């Protein structure tokens, strides 16, 4: 997994609520057996019309808005557990998603793939949308070590919180499998005491 420590970037505003993973990556693009190239189909049906023409009014097609941060409305990533949603966002080039609320499975998937979900208050989120939409060159600064998000060059900041274990993994680029494998002996002795009818 890629390390994440600090990021200063412009942000792409997508002020919709309840963006579900079927929108992030529609099911018909889940046929792949590898993790690569999902970025091409990120937000496919919002980015392109049925005839494959770009939809000019969608923010990813607006070259004025670029950056490695996606700014989205509350309850981002609800719906299907498909990790492909996190892969698609990462592959497209996003490293951070900011929202006032994340769906549970998406949040875990993002963290397992080096994509940082930053959860802030509804009020600060509104302020960020306003800042980014009124000045596209606005830079946001995400500092994982300090757990803060700041509008660069201003005193507007808010802290966010992240599970300390996950934070350590991201800062160091570790993932969970290495850790679980190291517990093999513990797991085996757990199994010895575990009721047999539960572990057919």
């Amino acid at each position, binding site marked *: 997994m890629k390390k994440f420590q600090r990021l200063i970037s412009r942000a792409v505003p997508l*002020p*919709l*609520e*309840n963006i*579900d993973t*079927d*929108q992030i990556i*529609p*099911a*018909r693009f*889940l*046929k*792949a*057996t*590898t*993790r690569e190239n999902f970025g091409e189909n990120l937000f496919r*049906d919002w980015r392109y019309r*049925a005839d494959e023409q770009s939809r000019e009014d969608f923010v990813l097609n607006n070259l004025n808005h670029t950056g490695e941060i996606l700014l989205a*409305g*509350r*309850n981002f990533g*609800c*719906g*299907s*557990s*498909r*990790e*492909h949603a*996190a892969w698609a966002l990462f592959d497209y080039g996003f490293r951070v998603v900011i929202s006032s*609320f994340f*769906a*549970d*499975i998406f949040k*875990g*998937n993002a963290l*397992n*793939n080096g994509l940082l979900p930053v959860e802030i208050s509804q009020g600060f989120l509104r302020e960020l949308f306003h800042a980014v939409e009124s000045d596209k060159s606005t830079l946001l600064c995400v500092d994982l070590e300090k757990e803060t998000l700041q509008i660069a060059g201003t005193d507007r900041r808010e802290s966010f919180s992240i*599970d*300390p*274990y*996950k934070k350590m993994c991201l800062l160091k680029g570790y*993932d*969970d*499998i290495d*850790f*679980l*494998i190291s*517990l*093999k002996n*513990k*797991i085996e002795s*757990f*199994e010895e005491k*575990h*009721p*047999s*009818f*539960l*572990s*057919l």
Partner: protein
Amino acid sequence: MASSLFDKVWQAHLVERIPKGPEVLYIDRHFIHEVTSPQAFADLEKRGLPVFRKQKIIATADHNVPTENQHLIIQEPLSRKQVETLSENCKKHQIELFALGHEYQGIVHVIGPELGLTLPGMTIVCGDSHTSTHGAFGAIAFGIGTSQVAMAMASQCILQSKPKQMRIRIEGKLKKGVTPKDVILYLISKMGTDGATGHFVEYSGNVFQQMSMEGRMTVCNMSIEMGAKGGMIAPDDTTFSYIRGRKFAPKGMEWERALSYWKSIYTDVNARFHKENCFDALDIEPMITYGTHPGMGIKISENIPVNTEDENYKKSLNYMGFQQGESLIGKSIDYVFIGSCTNARIEDLRLVARIVKDKKKAENLQAMIVPGSQQVARQACEEGLDHIFQAAGFEFRQAGCSACLGMNEDKIPSEAYCVSTSNRNFEGRQGPGARTLLASPMVAAITAIEGKIVDVSRYIEKMDLFN
């Protein structure tokens, strides 16, 4: 200290606590399917790791399979490759696979329970959000991402912070014609799509006690649609008699031991929940959704709410082609889809058959009924339900996820209206541009006969279905 059903099951699976971090939870049953497993197998291979406990993994092909001519080779090359990759991986790692054509193949959340692979007190994961279905048996069951699928394969454990707990209680008697699907659509409309985020839900109260296992599965299935990590219902005699004698269920002495354990995992009287919500059974009526998430549900007889301020809301209604404040009654419908892990069990099929028997579907729509598994399909045929469906003009297909998600060949065309018994009405869920209205199998069956949305309460009175 008083503890809940959830606490008891969780505690029995705790391998290790990481200070200030998540907990290491042992997994009893890991279901996999073709869509979310290939990258996990690849991860393991890349690291040179074996599958740790292959006998605890059960695989099936469901999402990406055709529901016609399953004996033929899959036409679409990418789908074929995905399904073949699953077979190769299972063969290589000696994992039990119910492949296309196998007598036990079917939607992963339908086959687990019907084969007795899903048991009370278990921890169950699958790379699929509707794993919450298995909570109907009093198991802790939840969906995981592909990285976690790899973790579970490598260690039979996953890292998980203990979620908060919520209890949802419904007391009273359901009105005639109100089905478990209406109960859960009602709950989601009240709670919102993020009302239970971060929580594990226990459903309690006599409404759930009186429900069949199929009904409980329908309810637990859609827990995720209100943001819950999962949902569960305490196991009772209904649960035990459902499990007894199933293919992989414990037998003999094992059964006795299991039974006495299962009877010990109830929520204690004084157990505390982070949130409690109570609803009155009498307030629930047949439901339908009008928008683009499952929380946008109304009683069929109600009008679409007015909310002129909210841009999300306007966008959603615009997609659906509906107006604020209007009634859905009389709206012409193009497709009816009866299927999915929410409502494709034998009980659902029987109910539909009772409604459509000796009737014909309306000319203006296509009606599709897709059993959740080969076993459901076989049983339906044994009971002669297939003839009833065919005589009524329904297409009776082979087991799979089908039009629940626009992934396999079964899709709803752009802008067409589909009354569906599945669990998600997101934009494009049933195919690009498709417009989904979620409802119970009963409402779907009545819609198929009428060709439009009707006020089912009158219909129910007339039909005398629920004596």
